[in-house]
């Protein structure tokens, strides 16, 4: 075991230190650990290259002189191997450390800890005391965020079972383009392959595993998509006029675009994104909330109240 590890480290050092490409025969001659028949060495080297690549180390293949059909050579570029964040200040190190700490106990925890170790190896002290904030914790609700971010970066096709608002389960095929988080929930947005439109899914409403496969070849990421704006809603909705008792209805007030005082009550105007969701929010507030308009919403609420009375009478 140790011999293989030694050989991998020695190969890395040799390929990093060289200023020109090293040919295979030079590597076999000079790097310790390549032994046995030509065939054995060849096999060892192929596997070692794959191993280093899987660790994220980029090995460049080239030749000394493009004019001659030379033997291929190998090297690792220092600038690709090393963490290069440019000139970095103690404050920036502290910001990055806080960013890494946010993952404690969540899906990117291990990756974040590895990144933190590398940051701590840069020899730049941190000065977290100068920051006006403490570490926040990211809560991923058990979602497989690493799988999703990888799928976004590689434009993979992901397939999953999604629970819709009527509790029906449908299989969705999506090329994800964005990931966002609000109020502790994570959302993934992507081009739904059945309708070829952007849809947003709450990740904790995905049932079972998400599988990722190669995405469609001709996929074009939608222009101007901004994951920070997926919650803004559709700007062309209709408006509801709702009376709310003073001091009540805080969550309805948060949605209001205007508030007018009417003595004991306030009249709110708010955009309707979804009639059923709004009706349910109005009902939650009981006798402290009364819908003036639209008629559609009033009718829906009256029908629900009649059922409630008969169900509980």
């Amino acid at each position, binding site marked *: 075991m140790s011999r293989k590890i030694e050989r991998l480290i020695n190969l*890395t050092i040799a390929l990093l230190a060289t200023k020109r490409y090293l040919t295979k025969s030079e590597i076999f001659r000079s790097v310790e650990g390549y032994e046995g028949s030509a065939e054995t060495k060849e096999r060892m080297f192929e596997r070692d290259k794959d191993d280093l690549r899987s660790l994220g180390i980029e090995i460049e293949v080239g030749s000394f002189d493009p004019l001659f059909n030379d033997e291929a050579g190998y090297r690792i570029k220092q600038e690709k191997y090393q963490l290069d964040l440019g000139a970095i200040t103690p404050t920036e190190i502290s910001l990055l450390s806080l960013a890494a700490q*946010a993952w404690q106990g969540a899906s990117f925890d291990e990756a974040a800890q*590895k990144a933190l170790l590398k940051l701590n190896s840069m020899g730049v002290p941190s000065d977290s005391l100068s920051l006006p904030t403490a570490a926040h914790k990211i809560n991923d609700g058990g979602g497989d965020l690493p799988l999703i971010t990888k799928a976004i970066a590689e434009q993979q096709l992901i397939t999953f079972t999604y629970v819709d608002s009527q509790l029906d389960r449908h299989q969705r095929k999506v090329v994800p383009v964005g990931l966002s988080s609000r109020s502790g929930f994570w959302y993934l947005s992507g081009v739904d392959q059945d309708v070829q439109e952007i849809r947003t899914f709450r990740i904790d409403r995905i049932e079972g595993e998400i599988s990722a496969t190669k995405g469609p070849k001709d996929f074009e990421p939608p222009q101007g998509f901004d994951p920070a704006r997926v919650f803004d809603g559709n700007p062309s909705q209709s408006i509801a006029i709702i009376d709310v008792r003073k001091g009540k209805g805080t969550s309805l007030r948060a949605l209001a675009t205007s508030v007018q005082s009417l003595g004991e009550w306030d009249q709110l105007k708010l955009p309707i994104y979804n009639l059923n969701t709004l009706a349910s929010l109005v009902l939650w507030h009981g006798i402290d909330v009364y819908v003036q308009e639209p008629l559609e919403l009033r009718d829906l609420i009256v029908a629900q109240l009649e059922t409630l009375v008969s169900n509980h009478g």
Partner: protein
Amino acid sequence: MGKNFSAPLERTARLLDLVPYINTHQGIALKDLAAVFEVSNAQMVNDLTTLWMCGLPGYTPLELMDLDFESGYVNISNAPTLAKPRSVTFDEGVALILGLDLLRASIPTDRSDLLEKIDSLSARLSSIINLNSTFSVIAPINQGVSAAIDEALASRSSLEIEYHSMYRDEITQRTIFPIEIIQVEGQHYLSSYCYSATDFRQFKLDRIQKAIVTQESKTIPEDATDTQRINSRLKVLKPTREIAERFSRQDLKAGSEFDFQTYSQQWLERSILSSGDGVALLTPPEIRASIAQMAQSMLDRYKAE
């Protein structure tokens, strides 16, 4: 991520990362180094012994790394090729970028210097890992609140909070003794003893609008216990996702019944009202009557106008 690698590859990665770490922490105690890399002392000695055999081709003492750890303290020299930390992997980069995004939301707007630094770090990391897509994370709670909670939990002090209660629908001032942050259904709650209610309560973090650590020392009264628990039974009429999530049921079938426990009558009443024709409360009868009465008085107003 490391856990996907075979043991020798994971060890190779660790050895490569050890060199720059020791390089910037010369003289670190062997046991501290083992703790940082989350391995046993014996494994760390093994790692250092292996590393000691590595170096530039030639492998004479001149080309080998100089490692000294026999004294129990670790020093390294002659390791210029590996002296700088390795670049970040895709996952490591994404973890930092998402973490920075979260952090951005918690920086006061008058610190544009820090906001610019966060944007610039995020851009530099994106370019290292070739990330074109953007992610968006908004901190679920405001940073002043978060800092006060952290401080109170760390120093075991009480907190004065301003809380928006969803089911009483009012903003209240309370003095609480925070116990821990718990996670239920993807949401964070501060589990606490509430002096105003003289009982244990859970506060949803994103509804705490203000929090101040108090100086006076308070503790939880020894006779504090759970309040009255309400045992209820509900019948599903029209299953919807909203109802499933509200009552934490994985699956709902029309016509099925289930038991539900809560500490708040108000929460239960409002939840049933809000679910409309989706569910009916079967027991307890007094809450059932109260729901019918509330719905009737609301209905009367709609019918009157």
